[in-house]
């Protein structure tokens, strides 16, 4: 979040500087001075060329998609038979909760998943528990419950195919998906 603010401030400063005209000595044409462009010491006299300020477009990076931002990370992983959000995922959940509390029109669906072992219907319920655990944590940190829907895919949409523990661990997961994605 702090990275976003810094970026915006820097871009704001850049935008503010670009349109200030500089008054030169009489007779010389007025041209815009930009901090990043080096100016010649002597300006050419009566070039007759009209100049126009170059507009700088403000480029904002979507924090949700910025790989440098924790908000682009969307998956919380769980132990077998567990729906406890482990400590290593608390910063991720906290970041999304803060984003939701600061962007009240944003909506997410949290999708719960399980590995393939056991009854499919019981796994739908387990996956739901995982999604709900993430939702509850986000609510405690300031997100509004109306912003968060929770659903379960149980074992039906695995990210990793395979019968080994590596695949199982990848599938014991809750994913945070923003509306419109």
């Amino acid at each position, binding site marked *: 979040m702090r990275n976003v603010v810094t970026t915006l401030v820097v871009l704001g400063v850049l935008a503010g500087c670009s349109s200030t005209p500089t008054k030169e000595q009489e007779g010389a044409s007025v041209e815009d001075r930009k901090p990043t462009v080096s100016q010649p010491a002597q300006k050419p006299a009566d070039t007759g060329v009209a100049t126009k300020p170059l507009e700088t477009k403000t480029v904002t990076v979507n924090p949700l998609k910025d790989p440098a931002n924790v908000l682009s990370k969307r998956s919380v992983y769980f132990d077998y038979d567990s729906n406890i959000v482990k400590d290593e995922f608390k910063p991720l959940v906290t970041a999304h909760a803060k984003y939701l509390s600061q962007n009240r029109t944003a909506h997410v669906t949290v999708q719960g998943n399980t590995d393939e072992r056991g*009854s499919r*219907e019981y796994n*739908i319920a387990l996956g739901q528990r995982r999604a709900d655990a993430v939702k509850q944590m986000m609510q405690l940190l300031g997100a509004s419950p109306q912003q968060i*829907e929770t659903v*379960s895919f149980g074992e039906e*949409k695995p990210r990793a195919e395979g019968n080994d523990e590596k695949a199982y661990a990848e599938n014991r997961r809750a994913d945070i998906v923003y509306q419109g994605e």
Partner: protein
Amino acid sequence: MTTILTRRIAYWLTVLLFAALPLAARAALTIEIVGAGATQIPIAIVPFRTEEALPQKITQVVAADLTRSGLFKMVDAGGMVPVPYEPEQLNYPQWQARGAEAVVIGTIAQMSDGRYDVRFRLMDATKQTQLAGYAYFAPAGDLRQIAHKIADVIYEKLTGDPGVFATKITYIVKRGKTFELQVADADGYGPQTVASSTEPLISPAWSPDGTRIAYVSFERRKPVVNVLNLATGQSRAVANFSGSNSAPAWAPDGRRLAVVLTKDGGSQIYMVNADGGGGATRLTHTSSIDTEPNFSPDGQWILFTSDRGGGPQIYRMPASGGQAQRMTFEGSYNVSPRHSPDGKSFAFVQRTGGGQFNLAVQDFASRQVQGLTDGRIDESPSFAPNSRMILYASHMGGRGILAAVSSDGRVKQRFLENAGDVREPAWGPAGKK
């Protein structure tokens, strides 16, 4: 993402495609049998007169049905001179010498309107009396079904239990990225795709009258309960509340379904109408997982899975909700309860100490539990309407397959599909006689 219109067009093209295939289409499932019943009745089935001229060899289907049950042993029926088609032609001493206790004979004649007149008799080889005899009149397309009905009569006369050879099964096939809900004969013959999706389909459940199948679809990016009308091919969502909707189970009156909804936070059991109208009536009121409801045949009780005791176990409550009683006490993971149609027991899945998931059956009266299978992952038990066989999902060679086991554990069958991953079977109800 396809629109509803393109999906509908695709559906009707599929229907037309299947309607255009000849009904004598290839069987997609072949069945392997292991094990035998406690006693096997030796029976001889003599090819019916003029049968060799027909596309469907009725006596072959009858023999396959009876063999597959594990309760019959086929006695060589060839080499008799003359070949018997009528009772007075039977040479009983010769049949007894071959060890047959029963002999089946019959005739087929084509009528002037093109239909077939099929007659058979079941004869007791020892008492030399007729045990049963029927005549059927039907077009060529129904010959296979007539064979199954003949097998049902023989099975019932000689074992005392109703036969289930003329019933249907449903299951889900995953091929690549497509999920198909299929309906086939109980011997796997003639599968028809009745619903298809690029998102998962699970938990099919037959209505008690066999006209509809409830199932769970993930097409809306969350689980929703649909009911498919088999005659019209139309599916309608009957539970699409916020959160997840799953685990449909028909009440015996066929008008309501128990389902599991998370709309009020947590997986709980509710009743909804089978036509989708009205809201949902909540049955369980816990902060645990309560799921996998299953009605008793008399409609009075619901078995379900709950982790209110710490881990998933099976409980029973009145069908209107209320006090639940725990049923399973062995092991830490008992799920997927299914009443037997005769109401005397229930099948379920237990996780063993070694981490396998196997089928077991528990008798209500004695509370005794018997393990039935020993695969790595066995799930989704479904009783045949006569309570004698249980269809379920297993794994072989990395793929999902269907399998069946007799309720006493002695007879085992494996259904081998040509391609695709098969799962989630459900045995259809007994048909009209």
